[in-house]
């Protein structure tokens, strides 16, 4: 079987690299804790505690800024909330160990309230909105003096001991900071390696494709923001205790927010360990400049940060982790590529397909864009086990119809009803509902999740059925082999050819085990052998009982595949029925080749 050769070929090298990485990581972490203890110097302790705090903040930021791709430059809001909650409660005699959770709770509420309306903003606008929120928080913290002490700030009472998080020696503080770093790393790692992580990255890379795969894109992002805010607040509480004094301009600080994000970018945005590396490399510069050079060098560390940041975006946009990964993959190639496994042939039976009862009803769809009437009274029915070809010249409105059949567009009039697994007819309203009822779709312009491997791409689809990573991986591998993608499992999705990407698109949907499949031009731009393979693939999919609607321009394929075709022209159905008859219909020839051709 191809499966076994593949696994044995791929995994050892991968595991070897993985293990090496983990060992290196363990060493970095151990050094973070051991070095100051061994040296025993106050200042060294301080530097390492600060590294832990910033690494923890940056790791927490990365859950939102990296995994979810929402570039927050206002993360100091949550840090500041944690700090104020801690100090205010300590002044009321409540331990920061409790205040920490109170702060986290407030931060979660703030995060959800702040983020929800901002999710519709993209790129720089999201960043600007988070900065604006941060400014508002800072101004409010300055204003409400009774609570926050205003510009004069707040001191903590001198109560020493573990329950107050305040110590005479440095070691206990290091233990707490290090512990917090471990918690943040643990949470970040857990998210990244589970379903949620896949959902977040899929949402970041291609929101529509993620929605089509049944991902609740808003829900997962809100969850990420909440977790990130809670962690940041908890670190904030501890840091306040460590600093013993807080004031609005240093707590709700734009500079701090930028630094947190900067460490993640420099280390490797969106990677689990990148933020840690960024902080380990950069924090000492600050602290050294501050401690050793004093007032002489005010601004030096910031200048270095800025320059490093510019150099990193220009020359290593994937950060240190990106460079390390390139190094690792270079070695892999040197060690020899995996053996070429053959694409699993699709077994075909020549049994005439069984076409059953209707599974999807499209009735009287109307859609206008501005003054344009793009869909005019489109009605048809898809039956179980049927392949329905949806054809028509460019601009006929085929993709618009698909968008209405999958919940991405609401029709102005008319309805799309789908037979659910429960035997009832449903009228779903959004992509998630359609996916839940077993409808899967591909996109005309392929939408691979670029930052993921082929396997991970397909797993996003498989997570529709499975919760556990191992199950999803299993299902993804099985699907990949069936789609002839077996040998590419560990490759970056972007490295595939067009034909490969089209197959990946289908594979991702197939991993959802849909009952109804909408294929949008999966054959466009692929070569002839790939077309043949795609035809065989679609026939084999149909044999598993899936009903298919395919938009296709490659007419030979449409003719070979379709049980029935629907011809759309200028938003209207101009013919439907048996493929051979339809292409001889004068209306159809006219729509495709011009009126005179039809008469010729």
């Amino acid at each position, binding site marked *: 079987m191809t499966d076994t050769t593949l696994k044995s070929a791929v995994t050892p090298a991968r595991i070897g690299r993985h293990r090496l990485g983990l060992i290196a990581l363990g060493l970095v972490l151990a050094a973070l804790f051991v070095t100051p203890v061994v040296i025993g110097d106050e200042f060294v302790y301080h530097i390492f505690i600060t590294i832990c705090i910033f690494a923890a903040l940056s790791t927490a930021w990365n859950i939102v800024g990296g995994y979810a791709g929402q570039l927050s430059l206002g993360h100091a809001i949550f840090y500041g909330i944690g700090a104020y909650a801690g100090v205010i409660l300590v002044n009321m005699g409540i331990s920061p160990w409790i205040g920490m959770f109170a702060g986290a709770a407030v931060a979660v509420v703030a995060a959800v309230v702040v983020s929800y309306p901002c999710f519709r903003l993209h790129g720089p606008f999201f960043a600007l909105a988070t900065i604006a929120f941060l400014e508002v928080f800072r101004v409010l913290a300055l204003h409400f003096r009774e609570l926050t002490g205003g510009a004069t700030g707040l001191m903590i009472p001198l109560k020493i001991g573990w329950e107050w998080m305040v110590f005479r020696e440095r070691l206990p503080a290091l233990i707490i900071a290090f512990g917090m770093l471990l918690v943040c790393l643990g949470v970040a790692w857990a998210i990244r390696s589970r379903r949620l992580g896949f959902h977040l990255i899929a949402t970041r890379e291609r929101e529509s494709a993620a929605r089509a795969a049944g991902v609740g894109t808003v829900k997962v992002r809100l969850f990420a923001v909440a977790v990130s805010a809670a962690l940041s607040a908890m670190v904030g509480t501890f840091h306040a205790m460590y600093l013993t004094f807080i004031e609005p301009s240093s707590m709700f600080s734009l500079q701090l927010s930028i630094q947190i994000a900067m460490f993640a970018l420099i280390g490797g945005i969106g990677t689990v360990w990148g933020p840690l590396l960024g902080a380990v490399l950069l924090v000492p510069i600050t602290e050294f400049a501050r401690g050793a050079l004093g007032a002489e060098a005010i601004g030096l560390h910031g200048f270095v940060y800025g320059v490093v940041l510019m150099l990193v975006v220009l020359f290593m946009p994937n950060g240190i982790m990106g460079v390390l990964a390139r190094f690792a993959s270079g070695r892999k190639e040197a060690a020899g590529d995996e053996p070429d496994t053959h694409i699993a042939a699709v077994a075909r039976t020549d049994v005439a397909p069984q076409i059953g009862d209707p599974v999807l009803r499209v009735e009287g769809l109307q859609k206008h864009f501005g003054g344009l009437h793009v869909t005019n009274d489109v009605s048809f029915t898809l039956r179980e086990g049927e392949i329905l070809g949806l054809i028509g010249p460019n601009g006929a409105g085929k993709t618009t119809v698909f968008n209405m059949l999958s919940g991405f567009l609401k029709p102005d009039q008319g309805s799309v009803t789908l037979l659910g697994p429960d035997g009832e007819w449903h009228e779903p309203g959004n992509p998630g509902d359609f996916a839940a009822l077993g409808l899967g779709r591909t996109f005309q312009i392929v939408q691979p999740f670029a930052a993921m491997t082929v396997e991970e791409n397909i797993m996003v689809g498989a997570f529709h059925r499975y919760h556990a990573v191992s199950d999803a991986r299993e299902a993804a591998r099985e699907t990949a082999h069936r789609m002839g993608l077996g040998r590419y499992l560990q490759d970056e999705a972007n490295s595939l050819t067009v034909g490969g990407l089209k197959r990946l698109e289908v594979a991702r949907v197939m991993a959802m085990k849909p009952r109804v499949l909408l294929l949008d031009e999966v054959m466009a731009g692929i070569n002839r052998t790939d077309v043949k393979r795609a035809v065989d693939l679609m026939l084999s999919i149909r044999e598993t009982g899936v009903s298919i609607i395919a938009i296709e321009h490659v*007419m030979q394929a449409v*003719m070979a595949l379709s049980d029935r075709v629907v011809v759309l022209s200028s938003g209207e159905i101009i013919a439907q029925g048996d493929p051979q008859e339809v*292409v001889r219909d004068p209306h159809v020839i006219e729509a495709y080749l011009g009126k005179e051709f039809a008469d010729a």
Partner: protein
Amino acid sequence: MLEVRNVDAGYGSTVILQDVSLRVEEGEVVTIVGANGAGKTTTLRTVSGLVTPKTGGVFFEGEEISKLQPHDVVDRGITLIPEGRQLFPDMSVRENLLMGAHRRDARGVRSETLEEVLGLFPRLGERLDQHASSLSGGEQQMVAIARGMMARPRLLMFDEPSLGLAPIIVEQVFDVISKVAASGMTVLIVEQNVWHTLKAADRGYVLENGEMVLDDAADALIENDHVRQAYLGI
């Protein structure tokens, strides 16, 4: 005048054109026909410098132009009228037309060119001060063609000029293209509407899945079953 020699081209790692060659002689009207996704637009984009060929070369009047930036290609005298019209939406029709004459050789004589072009498109004369986005689809296509002519190109390329237009407007667009061709302009045109283009052209190439499979006189292609097959699968 224009020669595309054994070009492989595509986007990123994606190869769309494979070993594509074609020639356009001065004063000729040449068309490339082929189904959607066959690579027609990519061919035009390669000529205009928007896509750099991976292998092979593009030559214009004997000089290689495949490494030039799009604006340099325009300066040499090749203008592409892009698919989907691509007007400047917030500019008036007049400004759109003036933008067409940005090319060095055209800028100095743009008032004269404007007069000439408006002679061909009398309807646009009445719309000069309207915003381009307020025009109908057909009128926008006319502006796009007129804007292309404002560059006083030596070779004018059309990408799907009839796309998304009502049949009666398609007729008008092809009337204009015929007039342009009759004025002695060298034209390379890519079209879905096979009948109309082949009627307007001298010669044609058939592009299938990124490869040139056929070239012949336009009249002969109309009779050729291969063309029907490529589009309709019969």
